[in-house]
């Protein structure tokens, strides 16, 4: 994010607080992509991701006066979004994918030059979405923030040390699950 973006956010927020509702559209247009993508990483459902992102914008609009300008607007917005997405998933969790049931073969090297790699990546992301909330949140936000631990910690409202610990434990859990042989499948899954 550039300094111009930060200034544009400040100006738009100032205009909205002064009563110009249409100035909020600039904020929506600037942040719709990141907020929908973040929501999608949590729920893995495009329609739901848009609903959740819309709710974040509405809450941001209502709470705009509470943004203290000592931090970037985006930091405040992402913290609000992460909080809402986590609450929403706690209340209405996505369809569960048992960690043991998504395990892949042990050899991760691609044999067909890309397709298998994509499939594995998809499974890894699906596994992340199915992890216990505190590890899922840490992993989702870490990769969403381009592997910036501090940014992810700010969005989650936790310390950098806690973030590192959760990330390490989450990765370890993920690695272990990915290395496990696939569990027996139920009749419904066959």
């Amino acid at each position, binding site marked *: 994010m550039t300094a111009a973006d930060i200034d544009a956010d400040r100006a738009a927020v100032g205009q909205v607080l002064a009563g110009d*509702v*249409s100035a*909020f*559209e600039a904020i*929506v*247009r600037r942040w*719709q*992509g990141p907020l*929908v*993508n973040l929501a*999608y*990483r949590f729920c893995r459902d*495009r329609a739901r*991701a*848009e609903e959740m*992102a*819309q709710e974040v*914008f*509405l809450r941001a*609009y*209502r709470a705009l006066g509470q943004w203290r300008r000592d931090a970037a607007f985006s930091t405040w917005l992402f913290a609000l979004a992460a909080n809402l997405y986590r609450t929403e998933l706690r209340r209405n969790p996505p369809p569960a994918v048992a960690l043991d049931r998504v395990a892949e073969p042990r050899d*991760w090297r691609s044999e067909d030059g890309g397709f298998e790699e994509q499939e*594995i*990546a998809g499974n*890894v*992301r699906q596994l*992340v979405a199915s992890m216990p909330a505190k590890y899922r949140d840490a*992993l989702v936000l870490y*990769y969403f923030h*381009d*592997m910036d631990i501090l940014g992810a910690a700010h969005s989650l409202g936790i310390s950098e040390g806690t973030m590192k610990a959760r990330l390490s434990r989450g*990765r370890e859990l*993920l*690695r272990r699950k*990915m*290395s496990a042989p696939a569990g027996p499948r139920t009749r419904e899954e066959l």
Partner: protein
Amino acid sequence: MTNGELDRYLAGEPPIVPSSGFAANVMDAVRREAATPPPIPFPWKRAIPGFVGALLIVVCFAVVFATTPITGAVPALFPRAAEILDAARAIGAGWILLALLLSYLSVRLAKLVARAPW
């Protein structure tokens, strides 16, 4: 699987693009929100004396219950009730209940006052 591989799978996720009408839908919702009159705030300044009065009445009842001996219809209707109440009084159950009630009410009141838009 190494951390590097995990990073590649998770950081390399292709972004999704919001649907074309997304921003317009959000702005419609925001405009509706802006057009809605703000909710009438709860009249805390008027309500607090009422809450305090109700609290005092509850405290008075609790004190009377804790200090008055049991007589009359209750023991006749429930023969074991007098024994239970005597035992409760012996361990100071009335005061314990009163203390718990006051603690609960003070926490609730503090939360309500903290949330109130003064």
